[in-house]
């Protein structure tokens, strides 16, 4: 809690940020409060993104925008007013955005990103992440190249009529705390560790009084009857449905009866029977974790390896040696019907094994640091968090813009699967947006921008689209309806579209900054006509 103190207004930050601290914790908040975010272009979408980052308390933001405010900007942007028309959009937006949270410092640069990239591309080196809105293709590619070389994440956002678009460009994003929604428990009933065996062996169900019997944690009940089953089946676990039912029957036999022979109400036995389906999954290493172990970054550590890869390597060595093919124990058990004493004892048994696994890995980490000659420490807390999340580690590597825009990209050829259909999916709008960019490149104007040119622009856009699809080697058709609809939009940026992308983009930025939760990879399309969306890697 050390990092969380008083806010400028004297408000307790624990209080002010309470609702989000419950999601990403104090350490997530600290990461947020030390981050520096750059926004290119204070469009409606741009300011909405910043709003949703300033409210939860990023460290600072910088708006880069060379435009003067126009009447239509004030129409759809909450952070501009009528008085600002004709003046610097960067300046006014920064002022209004800054009012949202006095603990965030705001700055602006009244300059077009094109010229900034020419004159001072090092300017961007200071940022944790750059968010770009409403940039033309040419500038975007330049910016993408510059940031890729500097290894700074870039999030591109755009709202076009009823279509929202985002593209994340990050070389390598590592997530330890991915917070999976429905994670399996890590109980090791299939390969019990010594401490667990010893503890359960010390308990005898048969000699217990009635109360203790019905308050024995199901984990112990299931383990006991599982041993019975294994003895009869050459040490194997029940695998198929029929075998699991047999085990359930054996457990059911264990329920006590009263004097009249009627079954007692033993909730713990009911829970044990239910758990046969879920708690006997064999302990194994997921393919995602296996991939990390096989990654070059893991196998070839060097003096500049990041903490993450050193930890992954230590984890791998643990799995191959002390772990006997298993990850370190997570060390937690779910709540279950039980008396306090034995539940806590059982919890401690798991806890102690987890601690012992962590200390082995900790030793490996320190040895590795010495061996590769890397300075800097990896804290015990970091190692502990890593071990507890070992099953949920995630790595996101995005393709660069350059790769995406290369004409011989296989990903572009694959697009036909998405669009060559009576009911094409929302990926079709990616192709249409690319066609609109070629239109803009050619005519310096968006199709349908002027009401009296909508019809003629439909024909021109169709030509741009055909050429694009030909260049990509796509032999499918896109219905004229879609081309008409895109021309109807005429690059309109409806505020509610900006607000949607503003929320979604901000959350992706928070994921990148905190290294918690999993960002999308790498292109996201939102279709507000149907309220549907799709993610595709391009």
């Amino acid at each position, binding site marked *: 809690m050390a990092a969380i103190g008083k806010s400028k207004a004297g*408000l*307790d930050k*624990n*209080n*002010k*940020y*309470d*609702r*989000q*601290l*419950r*999601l990403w914790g104090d350490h997530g908040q600290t990461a947020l409060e030390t981050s520096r975010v750059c926004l290119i272009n204070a469009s409606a979408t741009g300011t909405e993104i910043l*709003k*949703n980052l300033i*409210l*939860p*308390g990023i460290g600072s933001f910088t708006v880069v925008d060379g435009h003067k405010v126009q*009447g*239509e900007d004030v*129409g759809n942007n*909450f952070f501009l007013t009528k008085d600002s*028309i004709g003046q610097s959009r960067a300046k006014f937006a920064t002022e209004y955005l800054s009012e949202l949270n*006095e603990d965030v410092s705001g700055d602006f640069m009244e300059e077009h990103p094109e010229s900034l990239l020419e004159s001072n591309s090092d300017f961007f080196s200071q940022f944790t992440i750059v968010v770009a809105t409403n940039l033309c293709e040419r500038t975007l590619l330049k910016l993408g190249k510059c940031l890729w070389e500097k290894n700074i994440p870039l999030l591109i956002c755009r709202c076009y009529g*009823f279509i929202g678009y985002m593209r994340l460009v990050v070389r390598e994003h590592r997530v330890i705390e*991915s917070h*999976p*929604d429905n994670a399996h428990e890590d109980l090791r009933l299939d390969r019990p560790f010594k401490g667990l065996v010893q503890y359960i062996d010390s308990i005898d169900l048969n000699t217990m009084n009635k109360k203790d019997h019905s308050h024995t944690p199901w984990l112990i009940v299931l383990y006991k009857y599982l041993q019975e089953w294994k003895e009869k089946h050459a040490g194997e676990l029940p695998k198929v449905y029929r075998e699991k039912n047999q085990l359930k029957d054996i457990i059911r036999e264990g329920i006590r009866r009263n004097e009249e022979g009627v079954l007692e109400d033993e909730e713990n036995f009911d829970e044990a029977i239910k758990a046969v389906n879920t708690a006997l999954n064999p302990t194994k290493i997921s393919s995602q974790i296996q991939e990390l172990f096989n990654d070059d970054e893991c196998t070839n550590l060097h003096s500049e390896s990041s903490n993450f890869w050193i930890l992954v390597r230590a984890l791998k060595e643990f799995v191959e040696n002390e772990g006997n093919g298993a990850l370190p124990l997570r060390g937690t058990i779910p*709540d279950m019907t*039980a008396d*306090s004493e034995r*539940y*806590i004892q059982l919890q401690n048994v798991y806890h102690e094994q987890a601690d012992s696994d962590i200390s082995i890995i900790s030793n490996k980490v320190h040895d590795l640091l010495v061996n590769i000659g890397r300075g800097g420490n990896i804290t015990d807390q970091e190692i502990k968090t890593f071990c507890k999340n070992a099953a949920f580690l995630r790595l996101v590597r995005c393709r660069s813009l350059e790769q995406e825009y290369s004409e011989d990209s296989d990903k572009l050829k694959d697009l036909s699967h998405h669009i060559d259909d009576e009911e094409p999916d929302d990926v079709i709008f990616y192709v249409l947006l690319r066609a609109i960019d070629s239109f803009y490149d050619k005519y310096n104007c968006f199709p349908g921008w002027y*009401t009296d040119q909508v019809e003629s622009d439909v024909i021109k856009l169709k030509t741009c689209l055909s050429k694009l699809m030909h260049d990509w080697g796509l032999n499918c058709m896109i219905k004229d*309806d879609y081309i*008409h*609809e895109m021309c*109807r*939009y*005429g690059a*309109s940026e*409806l*505020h*509610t*579209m900006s*607000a*949607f992308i*503003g*929320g*979604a983009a*901000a*959350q*992706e930025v928070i994921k990148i900054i905190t290294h918690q*939760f*999993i960002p*999308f990879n790498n292109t996201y399309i939102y279709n507000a006509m*149907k*309220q*549907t*969306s799709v*993610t595709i890697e391009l």
Partner: protein
Amino acid sequence: MSCDWPGRWCHVQKFIERTGPFAHPDFEPSSESLGFLQETCKLLIIGAGGLGCELLKDLALIGFKNIDIIDMDTIDVSNLNRQFLFRPKDVGRPKADVAADFINTRIPGANVTPHYAKIQDYDESFYRGFHIVVCGLDSIVARRWINGMLVSMLQYEDGELQQESLVPMVDGGTEGFKGNARVILPGMTACVECTLDLYPPQVNFPLCTIAHTPRLPEHCIEYVRILLWPKEHPFGEDVPIDGDEPKHIQWIMDKSLERANEFNISGITYRLTQGVVKRIIPAVASTNAVIAAACSTEVFKLATSCTVPLNNYMNFNDTEGIYTYTFEAERKEDCMACSKIPKSITFSESDKLQDIITYLQESAEYQMKSPGLTTNIKGKNKTLYMPTIKSIEEKTRENLKKTLSELEFVNGQELYVADPTTPMTLTFKLSLGSNME
């Protein structure tokens, strides 16, 4: 309009002055549509919290001028991480008032009317005054109540629904990184009661766990909240727990720690204590922004027909990538709110009145909160149980223990049920079995 300037509405106008292949069949592109949004159309936003602030901004910026907003709450410090119309100086003031002031000042021409009130304070004549109702609520009970109100306003002629009596409801909800947005056309598409099973039932720890076998820090906190507080009255007789009063939370935390230590349970913190006591649901700006935006887009579609509205439910979750799932929730043929079919319930003569009440509370279909029952016996109205008024509750309490035969119920007995979840009185037909079972 005097407060307009060139280009102000050009983003909006492209949608309503041009047609397209995906427009609603009724759509007529027209320069007058903007006038309808601005001058005629009246919206009601329910809730001025995380979603409400966003909804107000979104709807005002796409051309709606006449907006009422209703909320019974005042501003708390913990709102400031997402309810962006509020500043530290506003803490303690009514949310609806501050939100309305902010928008009326920032957006020229906006005419937002605040109501610092409960939705139950207003009747049908108030709700009839709106073209569309938009909800940004965190309470399922309130959502069910307004749903019931809009359904009760429907008028039928010869069994035909009168379209002008229909007020569409656009509803958003969020929790952490999850949210949903839906469009309800009362009487035509699935209503809140049709899909009650989409809301997860509230999880409570069994009392015996709390009292005798605590295992989690939460069990210890619940012990102090439910059992110790009413016994010890730490801040005086009749002082209820105030989850925003640090002294109260501190006391509960200290006592919980004592209990936890007794059982060797670890993990009690101030944050956890407050979370359990207040049943806090995590919330961030981003999810509220997303859901409010989707809802506002739907309001825009309903008001302009520029595109076909959502049919009719969208789920959102951005913990792993960004995920949306859109589907058509189906009407329930015998929905207790919108089907007009009287519900039938079956009990036996030896069952007690309490059994009926428990059933109404616990069945997944009804999930009532504190039902009050009246009936008609031999031509006379009779109050069976009324929990809301203390004096009547005391007088009718003994009925709870009576069997249905003692209460002189007959087969086909009509029971009239009132509950905070609905503004209507619901009629249940009792099918009464003998004592065979």
